[in-house]
């Protein structure tokens, strides 16, 4: 009986260890899929980090040591830009009319017209209030809203919050 019990305990322990190792392995694999080496355009700077967010031309990354880093989208290497673009496209496909929130890809901001990884139509279809004015993120978003009101589009060099 004792032998049977011992064997059972041994088997249970092995099973537990096997499951734990499998779980750890899966977690580790998932984690390693997200962590990647990011490079700047010149190739001189590299960091290992996870993509956390794209917002207003800025890519937010999280380093292995837990430190958050913000990088200009246009300063990234072509491969990294493509990677961000693919994440954004995938996210948009999942939430075509959803305002992409923090932790996903984007949250409003002032998009660029040509290099914006979100493509021509900005994902922010809902206006964002600033200075008591409702602002859309791109003229294409306004056109897509099918409003019958005409559009006024301010193209401003730099961040409006830092503008006079």
């Amino acid at each position, binding site marked *: 009986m004792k032998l049977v019990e011992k064997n059972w305990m041994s088997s249970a322990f092995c099973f537990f260890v096997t499951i734990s190792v499998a779980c750890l392995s899966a977690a580790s694999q998932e984690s390693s899929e997200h962590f990647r080496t990011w490079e700047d355009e010149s190739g001189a700077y590299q960091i290992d980090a996870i993509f956390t967010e794209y917002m207003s031309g800025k890519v937010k990354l999280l380093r292995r040591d837990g430190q958050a880093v913000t990088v200009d989208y246009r300063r990234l290497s072509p491969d990294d830009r493509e990677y961000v673009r693919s994440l954004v496209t995938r996210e948009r496909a999942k939430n075509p009319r959803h305002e992409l929130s923090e932790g996903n890809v984007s949250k409003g901001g002032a998009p660029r017209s040509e*290099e914006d990884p979100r493509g021509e139509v900005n994902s922010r279809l809902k206006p964002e209030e600033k200075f*008591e004015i409702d602002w859309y993120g791109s*003229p294409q978003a306004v056109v897509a809203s099918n*409003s019958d009101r*005409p*559009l*006024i589009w301010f193209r*401003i060099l730099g961040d409006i919050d830092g*503008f006079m």
Partner: protein
Amino acid sequence: MRTVTFSNAEVRKLLNQQWMSCLTNTMGDRNAGASLAHAPTDPAGPCGIGAGRQNVQTLFLTPKGEIFHVVSGYLDAKTLLEEIGFARQLWEQIKTESEERKRIVVEVHRRRLQELGYSEREIAEAKTPAFDLRLKQLSPSDLGFDVPDFSFPGLPEGMPQPFSSEIQKWRVLKDHNFVMGHPLISIQQFNRQASQLVGEGSTFFGSHPALNGLPEEFNEQAERLRQMFKQR
């Protein structure tokens, strides 16, 4: 714009009630040109209407995304309200589907220029390479940068001074001329050819890109001027 124009109650009311408003950052766009460096934390100072023309571009579009009016440069609340008023009147005339819409846009802009005192000859000249050459020859001091002898009291160093009336006149002419040359151009066409349409560096809407000054050259020119005034 943030501290003056967008703080105006009438501007806010019109933008919220009559227009769909859109704000984008042109940082890095070739057609946005470049400006003399100043920190976002620099105190806001008075800014000449139309100055910083590559820093601020205002476009008016139909709900379908067709451009029917453009203004380059900083606009104070009063000027923006005037431009909004003009654009609103024009929009009322083109909001119904008609083959005449493009012709109306051109005609209304021409009439506006005439009302502002431009002669037929001046309007026609704005399309010529000679006019673009004149724009190309504008120096930083022409555009209000680094002119200590005429500095606006209390304006932080490096901030643009108000435009001279002559330059302001050219700007208005060129901006209206842009729309007359491209009536109801679509947003897609605009984005595809923006650097050709807007011009780069030191010019206004519709200036020929081949004639534009590079921002680097412009900044070097400004630095030479700065040194020259220091040595005086």
